[in-house]
């Protein structure tokens, strides 16, 4: 049965709280999907396929939607990317596949992300199982951290017959896909179903186990034939400004996590919220605040629009949600006694380029002012796990700018048994789910080649003919 056109309410203030946290883009109806799929030219040597870090065979999966072979379409996607349902929702497609679509010049690009969601949702709703655990090859691998990098690596290894145990310190697996992606981009169920799919492949996921605390890293290295480290990054760092610990100052990641795991009406939010930072987390925290009911949300960023790390489409989305931006503004103190009352800032100018190559912000003397607010959310990046890095250094593993150093072709660290991937190795390039998935895949291939040999190594990366 086809789905039908449903009227969409675009204005947040016309929606109930629950509606505001539904997925922002409604699913494509069957007709929409087929019409869009038929618009795809089915390019040969298509640039979208190259632009996708996991090299999903995009023209093939779209063609399969057009011919009504939606099951085959989902399989084509998942063969290259086990987290295809998440990536369909969270990938910055404008920068990746859709940005590379040849129709950008001609017309408008194909809605690849939404078609991918259509196919993967179809498979999830029907509970198709595409992959099986491989014939046991007698080798054991430990995966530390069950985010997209860890899950992808674990799943690919299980398909090859490895006995995989995945250790996760949180109560739920999925990493930031579970806890960090705002619900109106990805409901938590989507991530948890992917976790289930990996478990169905025979991967043993042990939650509430922190490596380095509950179990020593060295023990794993001794007990397993290989270890894959995918611990991501930690909490939001201190801003090192006065007043930072006053009640009402929140960690952006924790705030987002609440919207994923708590009943929406129990989440505390400010009437006037200042969000510090201008990356993905900051945008997410700001838009969530608006959707929870905050009347004014200001993003405070010490550099200008040109330097902000958020994608342009995120910026546009936030503007559309009624978030206002204060660029060239540096917070210098949180004001308040028992509760946040304001954020003291100083205005900035752009000076000479700094180490990051971006023009450095310099304070304008005597330009201090106070933003009236009752909540401050800090979203200025994520800390690196320094303790863990120290443990790795003891094993002779090097680092780059606080990230784990790896060989890019194999994701192997300086230690022959230890591999790593995801945000904890992302010293360059965009930290994103799809890059994490690809790291997991590369490491799984390298581990297979190293422990089982060349013959079994290659995973299908494009359409395979049976």
């Amino acid at each position, binding site marked *: 049965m086809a789905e039908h056109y449903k009227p969409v309410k675009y204005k947040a203030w016309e929606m109930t709280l629950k509606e505001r946290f539904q997925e922002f883009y409604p699913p494509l109806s069957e007709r929409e999907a087929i019409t869009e799929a038929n618009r795809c030219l089915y390019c040969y040597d298509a640039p979208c396929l190259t632009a996708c870090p996991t090299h999903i065979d995009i023209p093939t999966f779209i063609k399969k939607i057009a*011919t009504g072979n939606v099951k085959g379409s989902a399989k084509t996607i998942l063969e290259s990317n086990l987290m295809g349902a998440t990536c369909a929702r969270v990938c910055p497609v404008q920068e990746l596949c859709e940005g590379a679509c040849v129709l950008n010049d001609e017309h408008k690009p194909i809605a690849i992300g939404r078609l991918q969601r259509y196919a993967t949702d179809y498979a999830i709703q029907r509970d198709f199982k595409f992959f099986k655990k491989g014939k046991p090859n007698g080798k054991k691998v430990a995966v530390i951290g069950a985010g997209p990098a860890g899950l992808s690596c674990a799943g690919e290894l299980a398909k090859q017959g490895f006995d995989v145990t995945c250790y996760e310190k949180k109560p739920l697996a999925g990493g930031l896909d579970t806890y960090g992606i705002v619900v109106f981009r990805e409901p938590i169920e989507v991530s948890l179903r992917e976790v289930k799919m990996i478990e169905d492949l025979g991967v043993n996921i042990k939650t509430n186990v922190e490596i380095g605390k509950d179990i020593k890293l060295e023990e794993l290295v001794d007990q397993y034939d290989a270890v894959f480290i995918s611990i991501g990054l930690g909490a939001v760092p201190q801003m090192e400004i006065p007043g930072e610990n006053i009640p009402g100052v929140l960690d952006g990641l924790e705030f987002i996590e609440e919207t994923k795991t708590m009943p929406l009406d129990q989440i505390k939010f400010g009437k006037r919220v200042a969000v510090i930072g201008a990356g993905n987390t900051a945008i997410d925290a700001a838009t969530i605040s608006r959707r929870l009911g905050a009347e004014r949300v200001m993003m405070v960023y010490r550099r200008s629009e040109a330097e902000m790390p958020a994608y342009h489409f995120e910026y546009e989305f936030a503007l559309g949600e009624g978030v206002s931006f204060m660029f060239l503004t540096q917070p210098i103190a949180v004001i308040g006694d028992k509760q946040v009352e304001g954020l003291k800032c100083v205005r900035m100018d752009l000076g000479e380029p700094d180490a990051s190559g971006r023009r450095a912000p310099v304070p304008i003397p005597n330009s201090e002012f106070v933003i009236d607010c009752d909540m401050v959310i800090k979203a200025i990046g994520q800390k690196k796990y320094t303790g863990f890095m120290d443990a790795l250094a003891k094993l002779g593993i090097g680092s780059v700018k606080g990230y784990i150093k790896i060989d890019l072709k194999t994701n192997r660290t300086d230690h022959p048994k230890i591999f790593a991937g995801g945000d904890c190795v992302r010293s360059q390039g965009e930290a994103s789910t799809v890059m994490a998935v690809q790291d997991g895949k590369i490491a799984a291939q390298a581990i297979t080649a190293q422990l089982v040999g060349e013959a079994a190594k290659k995973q299908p990366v494009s*359409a395979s*003919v*049976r």
Partner: protein
Amino acid sequence: MANLEIDFCGIKSPNPFWLASAPPSNSAYQVQKAFEQGWGGAVWKTIGAPVLNVCNRYGTIDYKGSKIIGLNNVELISDRPLEVNLKEIAETKRNFPNHAVIASVMVESTKQAWQDIVKRVEETGADGFELNFGCPHGMSERGMGAAMGQVPEYTCMVTEWVMDVATKPVIVKLTPNVTDIVQPARAAVKGRASAVSLINTINSIIGVDLDTFEIRPNVGGKGGHGGYAGPAVKPIALHLLSAVASDPEIQKAKMPISGMGGVETWRDALEFILLGATSVQVCTAVMHYGFRIVEDMIDGLSNWMDERGYTSIDQLIGKSVHRISSFGDFDLGFQTVARVDPAKCIQCNLCFIACNDAAHQCIDMKDLKFKGEPNERPYPVVREEDCVGCDLCSTVCPVDDCISMVEINTGRPHITWNELVKTKPEVLEWDSMEEYRKHAKIHIH
């Protein structure tokens, strides 16, 4: 996964998908590449008489933004030397022993020429022959191709010449450019052919350039009829296939049929199989997208079969043939009316204007106040007592499942036209027809 293997009068193929004799099967390079990508067989581009080709040999119809819904060509048979083709056919068969390699042949109409080429092809190890009695242009003017296929006696004669010397299965490829395709098909049976294939291309002219008045395709200022193929010809091909597949004489001969004409996806292929084809050939879709389309043909067909519990192609071949009937045997008492679902209706009113201008004026625009919104536009509502159930409105409706044709029981007698004229021959006069209608509660306004 379902087993897609087929046995086509002794020719084994890993799946029913074959390249049709055409540019995609022109050389060893192409055919072997196609096999590597999953094609189960190939009918080699027709070899035989020496020819010369022209440029601008294709013309296409694009329809509302979609490219190539139909493709016309004035290409002839292979223009590569016969020796080269024979060598490459042999090499291909050697490299792909489990795939179907079939040589399409066409020579001038002498017994000697046909029997010579058959013997030479047999030396290549090819699995069988396809006799090209269908090429509608260029070759037919030279007394070959369609000129053979359009005269059943010639079809039979040449088939017999070939059968006298061939040791491998022989497929007769039929032309659609005839009044009744069953006649040449029966001629193939009479000539002892092992199988038939259809359709070759349909006579056509693609269009006229409104600036220059030139014909498309335009060969240096001139044009002429060429062969039409591609998605647009599929309904015609399905009809001709079903006519052959449901003919008692063909059925008695138990001849396998290779179907083609407009196949682009596994769904198209499945329709051909359900109407009696054992293998399905493809040309235009490969010319448009390349060999890679076969991956979804295999995957889509086997997923469909798995979902429905079919395990082999044999279980599907000809499954719809028994439903092929004719007007005289349709149930005149089968009655449907259209029903519009206001919950799905987007109020484009295409159904209203179609019924009003081109059917029976039985859709009204009514203020249903369905959503209860202010200024709500009226909805199309079918006056069921006047609806003749013609199905036009539901075919123009752009929304899936919005207008359904609902079967109703009006107490009309379930009788066919043939039965009616047998029992009441008087209905062939208008007066009695009117009387019968009154009696049978058939109202026409």
